[in-house]
């Protein structure tokens, strides 16, 4: 704990920690899109039909959210695997203590997932606006419930002293001082991610972000780009405020882990990334332009912030667990074969994924010779 993350740990522990952080980061790229995107859709529906009709982001989100949810679930499998290697006892105990309440995330996820498809369907388009609001709001409520449950589960996994009492009480809820603030940090952090991702998605799909081409998409006097900037800035400011509320609720050893050698460089990276994002979005909003360089810089800032937050999340956890015992288990797991096979297939499959995307981008332009009309 006296060296910067992930150094200073036994090799096996450091190795699995890096894998957990990297895969969790990948999961968050998609999960943030879903969480913030479903919130954006629900708010949009509340703003009214006219607002939604003019807002291209609403249409884009309706179209892509189901796919993003599929990717978020898929990407979520890997950190779920590595958390079981790193903190098996803690993770399992929290799962078991919350029991049915925790397991409720699964049917809720299925319902929310199908509601995203329902939002894409022609059926919902023929219904009244109240239906659209209800479907969007329920989908968001589902994802918000899952986010809350994960936060609760995670915090309980850190609080071993509370386990026997909670078990004896039969209570399936775990309320602690930092729960709401921590949930707010991560929920609000999803909005800058959404803004960055929509900005790049808009560029790739040739959606005008500003200027005369985007005149028809101006809502409440804001161009699509300015709406993204507002979204990102609101998320960044809100996240910072929530972090300030969360900080005093942390135990002293967790604060030491964040501010000490283990987490300090990552805290600095997160803060610097946050500052870069704020500056980039302010410039973009004031000029109503987002050139590639500025978008890249904002993306770099976003990545630094998110990576920093994910590492700090681990630093807090590492301060609460019995590292000596865990390190033995990690070393035992690392001694088990199969890594080369994973690396080979992961490389091949990653190449196959890239090939698929490139192939579709090249060829999915004109209808094929045997398309439906021709069949």
């Amino acid at each position: 704990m006296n060296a910067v993350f992930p150094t200073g740990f036994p090799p096996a522990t450091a190795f699995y920690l890096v894998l957990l952080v990297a895969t969790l980061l990948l999961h968050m790229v998609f999960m943030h899109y879903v969480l913030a995107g479903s919130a954006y859709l629900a708010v949009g529906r509340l703003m009214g039909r006219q607002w939604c009709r003019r807002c291209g982001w609403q249409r884009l989100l309706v179209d892509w959210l189901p796919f993003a949810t599929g990717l978020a679930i898929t990407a979520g499998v890997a950190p779920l695997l590595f958390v079981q290697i790193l903190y098996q006892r803690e993770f399992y105990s929290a799962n078991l203590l919350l029991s049915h309440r925790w397991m409720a995330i699964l049917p809720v996820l299925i319902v929310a997932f199908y509601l995203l498809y329902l939002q894409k369907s022609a059926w919902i388009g023929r219904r009244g606006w109240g239906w659209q609001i209800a479907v969007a709001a329920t989908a968001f409520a589902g994802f918000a419930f899952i986010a809350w449950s994960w936060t609760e589960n995670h915090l309980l996994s850190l609080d071993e002293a509370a386990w026997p009492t909670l078990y004896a009480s039969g209570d399936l809820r775990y309320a602690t001082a930092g729960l709401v603030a921590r949930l707010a940090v991560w929920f609000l952090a999803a909005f800058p991610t959404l803004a960055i991702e929509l900005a790049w998605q808009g560029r790739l799909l040739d959606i005008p972000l500003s200027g005369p081409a985007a005149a028809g998409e101006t809502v409440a006097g804001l161009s699509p780009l300015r709406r993204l900037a507002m979204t990102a800035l609101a998320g960044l400011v809100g996240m910072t405020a929530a972090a300030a509320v969360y900080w005093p609720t942390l135990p002293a050893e967790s604060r030491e882990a964040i501010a000490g050698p283990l987490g300090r460089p990552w805290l600095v990276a997160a803060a610097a990334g946050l500052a870069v994002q704020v500056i980039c979005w302010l410039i973009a909003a004031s000029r109503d332009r987002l050139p590639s360089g500025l978008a890249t810089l904002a993306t770099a800032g976003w990545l630094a912030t998110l990576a920093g937050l994910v590492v700090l999340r681990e630093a807090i956890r590492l301060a609460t667990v019995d590292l000596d015992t865990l390190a033995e288990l990690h070393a035992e797991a690392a001694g088990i074969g199969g890594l080369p096979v994973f690396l080979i297939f992961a490389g091949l499959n990653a190449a196959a994924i890239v090939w698929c995307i490139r192939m579709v981008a090249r060829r999915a332009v004109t209808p094929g010779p045997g398309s439906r009309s021709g069949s």
Partner: protein
Amino acid sequence: MTPLEHYPVVDLGPVMKGMAIGGLGIFHVFLAQFAIGGGMLLCYLQWLHMRGRCRLARRFIDDYFKVLVLVSFVLGAVTGVAMWFTSIQVSPRTIGVMVREFHWIWATEWSFFCLEVVAGYLFFRFGPRLPDASRLQLLGLYSFASWMSLFWINGILSWQLTPGGWIESRDVWQGFFNPGFLPSLLFRTICSAAIASLAACVLINLVPGFTRRERESLVAICGRPLVLMLAMPLVGAWYFGSMPADSRGWVTGGSVPMTMFLTMAVGASALIGLYAIFGILRKQLYVNAATAGLLLSLAFVATAGGEFVREGVRKPFTIREYLYSNSVARDGIAELRQRGVTADDPYPLRDEAAYPSEQLVLGGKVFRAQCSVCHTLGGVNSVIELTGSWSLEQKRLNIAQLQQTKPFMPPFAGTPEELEALVQLIGWIDAGRPDAWEESSDPAVLAEIRRWIDEAGTRPGHASLAAAAGDRHR
């Protein structure tokens, strides 16, 4: 390996925990096999289309794929994650060992899952706008990736029943390519092809816009993979032969429920196979929506029966010769008989005040640690019912020598005091939970229990029976 790890134990009331994992598992396996077989079927249809042998194929593929995405990519994916979570709820130690031993296999499977999802979604979204060759490439990758997911998971699941050389060597590849790996993989591949064919027959009837003649032609083509069911008896026999002898014994009369479920699986598969071979493939009968739905329901019944048997024949283990179904390590019995199964349990009982004595509280903890994974105290598979006809003496003897009383039960792993506490708990509940219950601590009784426990030894039931048979032979 520690003899037992204490986790907070989930209480599902009158419901057996096996019902939760079994119900979800059956549903997930059926969906997963539908996705795997669906990929293979769609590749075949696309290939036929490109050779001009099925002009309707391209349109049907796009319709089928929408269903595949809506069913498999949502329900299949989420129930897959749910399997992990439910396994944690039921037996955290079992899933913990599986994750530890096979995490790189699982990670490899995940990389194929990623490919499957990306290729699948790209086809779903852009397939209708792609030329035929690209469609076949995308479908081929999707299909290959989904089958490879089965390949990797199958190795882990079959290892639970037939860990093979892993028991001695702890080598991951010896565990993965275990004796049950290949027959199980082939069997599941055939099941996948059959389920996808039957689902296609349902869909052909439900998709609007096809004429009766077009439907007939599509049914005839989509029914072709059902011919693979001809190999089922052979592959099934191979799979059956790969099982340990005592596991085979459970399904051939040794355990009535397991024999019934096997009969159900075999019967339902035979009915589907016979109809497919003689009705669909030879007589070219038209399969309407009702018939196709019925056949698909039979396939679900067959899957349910097969999965129940696969889970059940592992008894008394969750990982054969390594971990008992109650999460006690095979090699940890002797230690727990000295130290006590509840000695390190940090969790109190939920309703401790309702127990009139410390001994009954101890009995509650023993039940929770050793029995509650398969039994309840007043619901399904209740120990009160199961021991209802036993006298007090019989309860002590039968539980002390549990693996010999019922060879699919694990040996009792606790001290005589703990066993006596469990017996008293059963008696107290059977008596209607009276307010007062006298503690039983007769040293002579405890000494007798110790003698019975020692007599039974620490080996599992099948090993004790084999040893006894050997002695008789000599």
